[in-house]
């Protein structure tokens, strides 16, 4: 770990100003940043500790909910309003990491956690995300955990967050505070970027910009389910995950929200699958068609070829669970 200076922020504006300096970074729970700093994959020279800023509140805004970026993952998962109205979010949070880590991890940090690509984690191997232009070791290497959607020849890494998959299905928006003190709001769906030729640029966040809150619109009607598929039963990142909300009246699908985790460089909302589901009968055929649509563009890279079939089966199974199948 490279040496750095440390300050504990007590004021939002001062924090963003401090973090805009070259080499400076926010630290919240530290569970991803310190992990990477120990390996010198992240090398900040100054840390601005924002964990004690007054951004922990979870509050109702109209019919929706506003979650402070410093609320920890465990508290959000256990919040009565989240559990009752956004069970998808509770489920996704509870499927992530371990209880200890959820007690530490912030909502903002969770969104900004970096890929678990094994080569990204090993500084002795070429990686475009670590060193732009160096090459991608995962192509032609061990890529069981890698992306099947939206990848590029520069990078096939996935975004590892579970929470973000639920949030993107819930149409969450982010409140951001810029270095100069200006605020803006952005849909989470537009926040993370695909790798294209610049996999080292992962979000639209500007230098010093801070996530201050996640805003949830009123929950769509329907049943919620976050289904995470992994090798062991707990404490493992998703091979594939599905966030689904399905509303069925009679046997007709009134509305659907579908997102995937573990398949792309960002939490992957599938509007294609939703379009297929909308207005159709709740049958196995419909679900299969939705899965086909969701994965029409999917490409495997070798070890991860199975994820295409896994994602489709996980989606169909989740839809059967939520909507039944006649």
């Amino acid at each position, binding site marked *: *770990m*490279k*040496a*750095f*200076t*440390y300050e*504990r922020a007590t004021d939002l504006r001062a924090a963003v100003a401090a973090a805009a300096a070259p*080499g400076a970074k926010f*630290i919240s*729970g*530290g*569970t991803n940043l*310190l*992990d990477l700093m*120990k390996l010198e994959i992240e090398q900040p*020279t100054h*840390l601005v*500790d924002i*964990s004690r800023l007054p951004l922990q509140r979870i509050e109702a805004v109209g019919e929706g909910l506003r979650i402070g970026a410093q609320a920890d993952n*465990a508290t959000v*998962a*256990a919040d009565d309003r989240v*559990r*009752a109205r956004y*069970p998808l979010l*509770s*489920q996704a949070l*509870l*499927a992530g*990491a*371990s*209880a*200890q*880590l959820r*007690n*530490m991890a912030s909502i903002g940090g969770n969104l900004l956690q970096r890929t678990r690509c094994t080569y990204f984690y090993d500084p002795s191997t070429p990686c475009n995300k670590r060193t732009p232009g160096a090459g991608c070791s995962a192509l032609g290497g061990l890529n069981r955990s890698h992306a099947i959607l939206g990848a590029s020849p520069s990078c096939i890494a996935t975004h590892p967050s579970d929470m973000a998959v639920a949030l993107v299905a819930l149409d969450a928006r982010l409140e951001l505070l810029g270095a100069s003190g200006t605020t803006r709001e952005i849909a989470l769906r537009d926040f993370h970027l695909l790798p294209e030729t610049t996999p080292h640029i992962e979000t639209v966040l500007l230098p010093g910009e801070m996530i201050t809150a996640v805003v949830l619109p009123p929950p769509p009607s329907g049943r919620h389910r976050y289904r995470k598929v992994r090798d062991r*039963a*707990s*404490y493992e990142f998703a091979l594939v995950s599905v966030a689904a909300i399905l509303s069925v009246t009679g046997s007709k699908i009134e509305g659907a929200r579908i997102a995937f985790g573990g398949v792309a460089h960002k939490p992957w909302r599938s509007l294609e699958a939703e379009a297929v589901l909308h207005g159709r009968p709740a049958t196995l055929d419909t679900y299969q068609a939705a899965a086909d649509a969701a994965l029409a563009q999917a490409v495997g890279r070798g070890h991860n070829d199975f994820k295409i079939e896994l994602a489709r089966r996980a989606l169909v199974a989740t839809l059967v669970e939520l909507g039944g199948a006649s």
Partner: protein
Amino acid sequence: MTPRGGTQKTSFNVNGTPHDLDLDTRTTLLDALREHLHLTGTKKGCDHGQCGACTVLIGGRRIVSCLTLAVMHEGDDITTIEGLGRPDALHPMQAAFVERDGFQCGYCTSGQICSAIGMLREARAGWPSHVTEDVAAPTIDLTDEELRERMSGNLCRCAAYPNIIAAIRDASGGDGA
């Protein structure tokens, strides 16, 4: 330019004892405990949040001490395994681990015990888990399946798992946490 880091003063309480430390900012809470305060009961199994051996309680909540900086804990109340009981006056959870043989080499044990105590507190607060059928249900039924999921952040390579769960079940009636 080589970045200048250096040290920073920080104060926190460990097991009720206040400590004033002047630490390299890079020092994790785990290394502060082990290498500076010589409280070696808290173990380092991976140093990357992947095993739970370094679990301690902060304000009663369980965390992994390897992925947090000591300087981030100004004013915090930290409880480590040494603060729970002594060999001649075991905490009920510690006694249950001995009785049920909930360990072999003992290297994950401090983490398991601290984690179990933090876990019971979460369960009493009605927190759901990944295996809770209905996350909106107001109370939870602490089945063995629930215990196992909630303890999954603590690896045990000796694989004392069934005995650990038995110990926690025994102690969960009236833990003194």
